[in-house]
């Protein structure tokens, strides 16, 4: 009995030693396998049912002309895709997606980097500043959206009142589609730049100090040191941030939904997929098409990322 258990133990924990023993512990193997299944299967099954099954189902739905709630659906093959790429509206959606994504990714990365360079200096209160700047990233997008709706309100908003007080015109943030997009971009960057700042800060602190000291001894200016030493060494960090912020910007939803429910000027692919199915149109098939297109874009970006990392590893 005792001996048997020892056998199990070394069989389990030291697979390298397993070769020394003849594979006769099939009973223990089965036991191990059952324990593994008990531990892993629930999670794996949930992921299969609620992530992978829907992924395939969604692709199938995208080939249907189908109203949400109706039990009749007509197969249209790639009809929805043809409709998407031939309608002017969809190109507007793609344009909005592109502007929103480029502006929010660029904005959060550039401002995050600037913030990180400030936080990297030995200043009193920088711990507090770091925490404050990061905080919005973890707060509810719906709550944040409400707060900024209050600030941007053209009549009672504090921003509008300040502008009016200064004799400046008050922008119609909620009526003009372009300004609506700008407003959502501003709030999105405000909420996410702390994430970029903290990750850049970690990247900067990983740079060997003697490199920077050597540059200082050589008489390099602060800017020159940053441009020739810090920035190149931060490139893996920049790339990581580019990818993560790109993927999350493409999936932005909360702020858009709460600040501009109709999506006037702010309908990105993600928001269009929501509006088509759940925003009153009930176009389930077309919504599935839009989200499949978005999914393909995300996959392409992910593959590009993996390729790039591979390359880096080769050259490193």
């Amino acid at each position, binding site marked *: 009995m005792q001996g048997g258990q020892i056998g199990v133990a070394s069989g389990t924990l030291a697979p390298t030693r397993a070769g020394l023993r003849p594979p006769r512990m099939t009973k223990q193997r089965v036991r191990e396998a059952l324990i593994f299944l008990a531990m892993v299967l629930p999670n794996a099954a949930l992921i299969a049912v609620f992530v992978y099954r829907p992924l395939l189902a*969604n692709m199938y739905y995208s080939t249907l002309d189908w109203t949400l709630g109706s039990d009749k659906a007509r197969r249209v093959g790639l009809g929805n895709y043809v409709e998407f790429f031939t309608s002017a509206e969809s190109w507007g959606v793609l344009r909005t997606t592109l502007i929103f994504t480029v502006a929010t990714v660029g904005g959060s990365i550039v401002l995050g980097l600037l913030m990180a360079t400030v936080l990297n200096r030995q200043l009193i209160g920088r711990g507090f500043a770091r925490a404050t700047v990061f905080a919005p990233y*973890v707060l509810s997008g719906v709550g944040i959206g409400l707060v900024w709706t209050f600030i941007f309100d053209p009549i009672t908003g504090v921003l509008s009142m300040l502008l009016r007080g200064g004799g400046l015109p008050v922008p119609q943030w909620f009526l003009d589609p372009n300004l609506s997009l700008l407003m959502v971009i501003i709030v999105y960057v405000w909420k996410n730049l702390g994430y970029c700042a903290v990750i850049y800060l970690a990247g900067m602190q990983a740079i060997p100090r003697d490199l920077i000291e050597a540059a200082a001894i050589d008489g390099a200016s602060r800017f020159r040191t940053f441009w020739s030493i810090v920035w190149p060494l931060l490139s893996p960090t920049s790339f990581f*941030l580019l990818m993560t912020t790109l993927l999350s910007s493409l999936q932005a939803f909360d702020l858009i939904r709460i600040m501009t429910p109709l999506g006037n000027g702010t309908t990105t692919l993600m928001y269009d997929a929501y509006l088509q199915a759940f925003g009153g149109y009930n176009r389930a098939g077309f919504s599935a098409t839009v989200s499949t297109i978005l999914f393909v874009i995300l996959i392409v970006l992910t593959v590009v990322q993996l390729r790039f990392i591979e390359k880096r590893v080769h050259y490193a």
Partner: protein
Amino acid sequence: MSIATATPVTPEAADLGPAPSAGQRPRPILSTILGGYLPLVLATLIIALPLLWMFLGSLKTSGEVISNEIVWLPGSPSLDAYQRASAKVDFPRLFLNSVIVTVAGAGIKVLLAITTAYGLVFVRFPFKKIIFMGILVALMVPSQVSLLPNYLMIAGLGGANTYWGIILPGLGTAFGTFLLRQHFLSLPGEILEAAAIDGAGHFRRLWSIVIPISTPTIATVALVTVVNEWNDYLWPLIITSNDDMMTLPVGLTLLKNLEGDPSSYPILMAGAVVVILPVLIVFMFLQRYIVAGLTQGAVK
């Protein structure tokens, strides 16, 4: 100046010395203020002021909000807006719903992440790598792709406007599994081997060795999961339509639809405070863990 920099900087001094570039080089105070403190303070204000404005707004009266002059501070701070918000939408109930969904959802997710990660690291099974990849790749499948099919499935099973309907589809956890697996791989195998020789089974080893020595990582996973569940919006928005089954973010959407008039901003700010404040408090105290969890993977 070059003489000053050339003075040998002993390693000790360099370690004590603050930021890299600050080293031993004398820096003009002006540059520290303009290039350091000014942007630092400015950025902190830009982030903090809107949140402060929310708190102040929730304590104001409707009259103060629609006044032609900016009313910076509430004349007589009152919780009136909170009461009026609760009259429009049942806030205690929404709060309770959010707590239930967050505690149950995050609790199960963390449990699943722990057992999955343990199984993947310590239990013998064929094709573990492939199973792990299958779980990991799920991280990359965006939520909106699964939205419609999951809605049809859950609503079809009668899960609309139920707690289980809100919680179930999000339970599979790739993030927590990934983080904990990384951590478990770093644990010293000898301790577990010794326990195994003493006759401790897997569940025993998990419970009395692995979990106790992994509490910081588990806390990180738990906190990030709790925050995500609390803030979760898209799925609850779609699967709930009854006022009394909504979570806070969904209820706030309803409140905003009901209260379109500018004079109702105190009520909306009260709602925003209710959804933001709990996370803000948790963040203030456990910032370190949350930041570590959310920025994991960046520094590899």
